[in-house]
């Protein structure tokens, strides 16, 4: 057991060079906290899957060290892999097996004795119980995805890796899946997911890491990240067209847009707290009233994680 403060997964200076010379990871450092949901974002080929594969034992590292629960993933692989459940990106299934057999097999493979009650519960949670005696080839893609999740949960892992879990998955399955994730989180399971869908990370992650070209660009608490890198825009709809920003408002960096029908004010998302941003908005409101600006409506817009992500990747490219 690890204490609350020490990370459950610790990655130090991890590198991977494939036989063809491709450098998939260029010295990644990352600590994953017990019980958190961490989303790893990054474009295709960024190194997300390679990193997960090394932690899970599918790929040998070229350099650096990975520990899980304090154990080295290469030297103490039995200890680390017993703790980990992996849902792979590809829908890889033994077509001629039944659902219940393949899930039971996964449990045995991880050294755990039979536990039919637990398997039943997992299959019910994933709406697979009715299909338990079906062969996998008879199932739809979404159902197969559920089976892969059930297989990963069959040995009661403390850490769950979901590699692109929602690629090609319908709305119902996504909802079911996030319910399962929430339930797991409540029991203290640490969850690491990779995704292209940034709204997903925005919805469920505690922390967000961004990987690009084999490097971890940043890892940050989701809210902090959105405040730090996000920008806000205040938009003032006007009832009458203006030809210029009225006098007395020069200090506020306002722009006249939409052919003079609206004014916009850009500011950083973290300005609203502390940095005097709140009082500046209040001052702007007073100044607008004093200048008799014909206000129709006011709205604000905050940039999403997606905007932040695109900006971040763009800067490094």
């Amino acid at each position, binding site marked *: 057991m690890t204490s609350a403060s020490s990370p459950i997964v610790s990655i130090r200076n991890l590198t991977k060079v*494939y*036989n063809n010379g491709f450098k998939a990871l260029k010295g990644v450092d990352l600590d994953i906290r017990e019980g958190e949901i961490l989303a790893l974002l990054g474009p295709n080929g960024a190194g997300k899957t390679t990193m997960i594969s090394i932690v*899970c*034992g*599918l*790929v*040998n590292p070229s350099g650096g060290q990975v520990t899980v629960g304090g154990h080295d993933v290469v*030297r*103490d*692989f*039995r*200890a*680390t*892999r*017993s703790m*980990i459940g*992996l849902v*792979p990106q*590809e829908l*890889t*299934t*033994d*077509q*001629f097996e039944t659902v219940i*057999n393949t899930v*039971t*097999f*996964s*449990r*045995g*493979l*991880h*050294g*755990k*004795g039979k536990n039919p009650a637990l398997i039943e519960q997992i299959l019910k949670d994933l709406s697979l119980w009715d299909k338990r005696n079906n062969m996998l080839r008879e199932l739809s893609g979404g159902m197969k995805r559920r089976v892969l999740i059930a*297989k990963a949960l069959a040995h009661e892992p403390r850490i769950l890796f979901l590699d692109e879990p929602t690629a090609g998955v319908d709305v119902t399955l996504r909802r079911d899946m996030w319910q399962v994730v929430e339930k797991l989180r409540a029991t203290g399971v640490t969850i690491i997911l990779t995704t292209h869908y940034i709204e997903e990370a925005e919805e469920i992650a505690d922390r967000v890491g961004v990987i690009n070209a084999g490097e971890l660009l940043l890892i940050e608490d989701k809210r902090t990240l959105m405040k730090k890198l996000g920008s806000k825009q205040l938009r003032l709809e006007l009832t009458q067209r203006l030809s210029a920003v009225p006098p007395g408002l020069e200090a506020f960096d306002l722009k006249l847009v939409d052919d003079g029908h609206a004014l916009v004010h850009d500011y950083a998302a973290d300005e609203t707290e502390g940095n005097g941003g709140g009082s500046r908005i209040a001052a702007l409101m007073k100044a607008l009233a004093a200048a008799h600006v014909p206000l129709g409506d006011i709205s604000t817009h905050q940039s999403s994680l997606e905007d932040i992500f695109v900006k971040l990747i763009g800067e490094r490219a």
Partner: protein
Amino acid sequence: MSARFNFEAVKAIYYFEMARMRRTLLQSVISPVITTSLYFIVFGTAIGSRIQEVGGVSYGSFITPGLIMLTLLTQCIANGSIGIYFPKFTGTIYELLSAPVAMTEVLLGYVGAAASKGLIIGLIILATASFFVDIHIAHPVMMVVFLVLTAVTFSLFGFIIGIWAKNFEQLNIVPMLIVPPLTFLGGSFYSIDMLPPFWQAVSHFNPVLYLVSGFRWSFFEIADVNPIVSLGMIGLFLVICLSILAWIFRTGYRLRS
């Protein structure tokens, strides 16, 4: 590497593989039995009745050990290779590689199942043969030793092929193209005494000769080569297979990049 042996995993793989055999009963059991029965009818009864005894044994009885070996080799190689090749092909190998199992446990599960299947089929064929010809076993313990050693060795050999193969063609090339000629030319259907001296010498480079000869000795006490030499040759082949596998597991060849 921690010391704890993952016995549950060996069991899980073994039962999973044996379940495949039950599911494909027709292909894995019935078909070899029918093929062998045809050999007995054609060679043993139809042609064999016109052939004089070989070494004091009727021709039908003489070919029985060779036929069992032919099926055992083919089945063990096929089962040993498909067991590990199929997860590679479908991608489900990710689970084996990310589970807390050492490759030795994976090997025990797959090779144990492949050898068990081979042995079951070998014994079924022996039982089938007893319907056609007179069988008596002079050295039952040695018969079982030869059977088990051969089954294990060739299942290991199959496992190596399964790891090496990149496609179904490569997977089938050894059991389809290499094993039958070796078995047919390894004295399954004749004693190499019947061959000219040159071909007798060539036959000694055929590993299958030693298997068939030793196995036949355990039945009828007639052999082309000394049974101790036969046993030694099987042992040698077993050691070669284990050494190749030790190298594969150490380097992660075609398993882990």
